[in-house]
């Protein structure tokens, strides 16, 4: 966990997703901790654009060489864009988890749900507890 970064402008879930909110749109990915735990990511399954997702519900799957892990939506809303670059280059999730490794963009249907998420400090404290 030497130099893991958890940007302060993001919100985090206890399932190790992050969301960056700009206006009414949230960009979602998995954290530096999550990608490190998974190891080399080899496949990312994302929902089609237009899918309605619900906070806390599964929206996709990420597979590393060794394991399969579910992806959970931090908030509810409609998927308006997915990162198609991950089809060819799933390793972007490892290389740049908060940038090119983003997964979906959600048009928020209930922004109040953001209040239930962790800020960077709370997420790091959560990790220290041994999750």
């Amino acid at each position, binding site marked *: 966990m030497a130099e893991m970064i958890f940007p302060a402008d993001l919100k985090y879930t206890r399932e190790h997703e992050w969301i960056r909110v700009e206006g009414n749109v949230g960009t979602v990915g998995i954290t530096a901790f999550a990608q490190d735990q998974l*190891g080399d990511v*080899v*496949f990312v399954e994302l929902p089609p654009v237009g899918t309605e997702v619900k906070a806390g519900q599964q929206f996709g799957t990420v*597979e590393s*060489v*060794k394991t*399969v892990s579910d992806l959970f939506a931090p908030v509810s809303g409609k998927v308006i864009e997915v990162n198609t670059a991950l089809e060819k280059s799933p390793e972007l999730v490892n290389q740049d988890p908060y940038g090119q490794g983003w997964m979906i963009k959600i048009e928020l249907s209930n922004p109040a749900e953001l209040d239930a998420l962790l800020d960077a400090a709370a997420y790091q404290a959560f990790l220290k507890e041994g999750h």
Partner: protein
Amino acid sequence: MAEELKRTPLYAAHQRLGARMVPFGGWEMPVQYSGILAEHHAVRTAVGLFDVSHMGELEFRGPEALAALQRLVTNDVSRLEVGQALYSPMCNDRGTVVDDVLVYRLGPDHYWMVVNAANTEKDFAWVRAQLQDRLGPELEVRNISDQVAQVALQGPLAQEVLQPLTDFPLATLGSFRAVTGARVGPVETLVLSRTGYTGEDGFEIYCRPEDAETLWNLLLGVREPAPVVPCGLGARDTLRFEACLPLYGHELDETVTPLEAGLGAFVKLQKGDFIGREALARQKEAGVTRKLVGLELLDRGGIPRQGYEVVHQGEVVGRVTSGAQSPTLGKVLALAYVPVALSQPGTELAVVIRARPLRAVVVPRPFYRRQTPAKGPAV
């Protein structure tokens, strides 16, 4: 409560290297250091070093050792000269696989059976039970696993890396050949053999546990002709998978026979009686009803994992034993048991991943075969 995990003599070395440790077969083992894919490619293109001290060693000594081993395993141990090794299934009387092992002949009446870590206790109990009337001054069988550490140096550059560290002329050591007492740096090794579990040329080096760290650090210190990359069990699995080397608990267990697993070449029905011979002879005569096959997925949609269903025309016909996105070949591949009628290369099947059947085609095994032969003498 979970059983206490065992640690190899290299545990501290792994921690210093920042390895991620995982439980495997009762041991706390490194699954990766830099990353499984980087380690995998290092072994395919250059050289990597594995700690495989978790493997078990059973020592057979005495004038009855050969007869005992001939009874226990399906391959023909009588053809081993001193300094040779062979691979063999070890079966029960149903002909199903108790374990798959390496047998080394180290002296006229001295053999090692190297077994899978998770099976060491089971195998030792099994072997003793099978041989109970024979054990005595003519036949001693000991579990020496705690007195033996093992590292595997694997990859096309393995010989170039190892030769400067030893007086033993490695070019004279052929595939499945072994030498005892060779020096590697300051370490007097127990056994050094041209064997491995990656599909590449390479060596397995057995030493005393107290020498393991010296040997490990010596090999990892090599920078020319390429840096030796520490590799974990993750890469060991993807490497052996591409080479279609079976992994006990995946392709092999006590529900399958070596004939079903495609290991018929290691079952020598003509060598005389052995445990499982009758069942295997009957199965060979009747023909197997299912076979281990290679599958290549034609549709994207995930990685096949152990236990996933294989379907044909909507019916479940088999299950995946191992699967991966092949780092060397870039294809999504699987091994699976399917009915013989569906085992021909070209047969179209499907693998169910997250409730979706993805198209797959039977392909020849192994998936990967190295281009250049081992650097040892031509056999």
